[in-house]
C-alpha cells in the first residue's frame, strides 16, 4: 500500500499528524520515495525563482504633488504691489474731482426715460388705431457730459487696477 498524493503533499507542507508513519513508509518504499523526490524538486524549482526588479517606481502617484500654479516671476510680484499702490493713489486723486464733478453731472432719470417711452408708445397706438402710417418722432435721449464719461472711465480703471492687484496677490500665496 503506497502513500497517497495528499499524504506526500501534507508531509512536505508540514501539515500532517502522521509524520512518523509516513517517514517509516518512505524508508522502506522506493516508489514513494521517488514520488516524494519529484515533489521536492517542484518545491525547489519554485523556491529558485528570482525576484525581478521594477522598471518604474509605483510610489510616484503618491509622492508627486498635484501641479500647482507656477510661481510668479519676481517682477510680476512687484507689479502687483505697484498696481495696488497706483490704484490707491488714483483713488485719492479721484476723490476731489469726483466731489466737484458729481453735482454738475446730470444723470439720466430712469423714470423720465420710461415716461417718455410710455408716452411715445401711446402715441403710436393712437396712430395705429386711425390706420395712419406712424410718423417717426425721435426720442429725446438725455445728453451725457464729457466729464461724466471721463469720471466713469476713471472709476472703472481704478476698480480694474485694484481688482487685478488683489488677484495677483492671491496667486502669489
Amino acid at each position, binding site marked *: 500500500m503506497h502513500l497517497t*498524493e495528499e499524504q506526500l503533499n501534507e508531509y512536505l507542507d508540514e501539515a500532517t499528524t502522521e509524520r512518523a508513519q509516513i517517514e517509516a513508509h518512505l524508508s522502506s518504499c522506493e516508489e514513494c520515495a521517488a514520488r516524494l523526490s519529484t515533489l521536492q524538486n517542484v518545491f525547489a524549482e519554485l523556491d529558485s525563482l528570482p525576484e525581478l526588479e521594477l522598471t518604474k517606481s509605483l510610489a510616484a502617484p503618491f509622492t508627486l504633488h498635484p501641479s500647482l500654479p507656477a510661481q510668479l516671476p519676481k517682477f510680476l510680484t512687484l507689479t502687483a504691489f505697484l498696481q495696488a499702490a497706483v490704484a490707491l493713489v488714483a483713488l485719492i486723486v479721484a476723490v476731489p474731482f469726483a466731489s466737484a464733478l458729481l453735482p454738475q453731472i446730470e444723470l439720466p432719470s430712469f423714470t423720465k426715460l420710461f415716461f417718455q417711452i410710455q408716452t411715445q408708445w401711446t402715441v403710436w397706438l393712437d396712430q395705429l388705431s386711425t390706420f395712419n402710417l406712424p410718423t417717426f418722432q425721435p426720442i429725446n435721449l438725455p445728453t451725457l457730459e464729457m466729464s461724466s464719461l471721463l469720471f466713469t472711465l476713471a472709476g472703472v480703471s481704478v476698480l480694474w487696477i485694484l481688482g487685478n492687484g488683489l488677484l495677483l496677490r492671491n496667486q502669489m500665496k
Partner: protein
Amino acid sequence: MPTDRDLILRARRGDAEGREAFGELVTRYQTSVFNVCYRMLHERGEAEDLAQEVFIRAYDRIHTFDIEREFGPWIRRVAANLCLNHLEGQKVTAELDDERDADSAQLPESVQEIRERSEQIRGALASMPAHYRVVIELRHYQELSYEEIAEELKIPLSDVKSHLFRARKILAEKLHASN
C-alpha cells in the same frame, strides 16, 4: 526610520503628508507586490499596472486596515486576490512575456541557464488555470497555511488541497518535460 505602523497612521490623515507617508510604504513593498503580480500574470506591463492598482486600492481603504496586522503580508495577499480576479475576468489569455534580455547571448552560460530555467518555471505557472496559480502563490511564496488560503480565497479547505496538489502535479510534469 518610521515603522510601517507610523506610516499607516500618517497616511490615514489623507492630506499631502499622508500621501507622502503612503508613498514611503509603496517604496518598501512595491518589488514584492510586483513579483506577486508577475508570478501570477507573467506579463511585465500588466503586472506593473496591477501592482499599481493594488496600492491605489490599498490607499483608498487605508482607514479599514487593521493596524495590528502586518502590512507586507496583507498587501501581498491583496495583490494575489486582485490578480486572480483579473485572470478570471479575462476571456482570452494574453500573450506571455519573455523576460529574457535581448543581449542574453553575452551573459555567462550559467546565468543564461538560470534565466532559461526561471522562464520555464514562470511559463509552467502561467499555463495553469488562475485558481491553481493563486494557491501556489499563497502557499509557496506567501507561506499561508491551507486554512489561511481557504479563508483568503473564501473556498472550502478541500478545494485548497485539491487545487494545490493538482497544481504541483502539473508543474512536476511540465518541468520534467522541459528538462
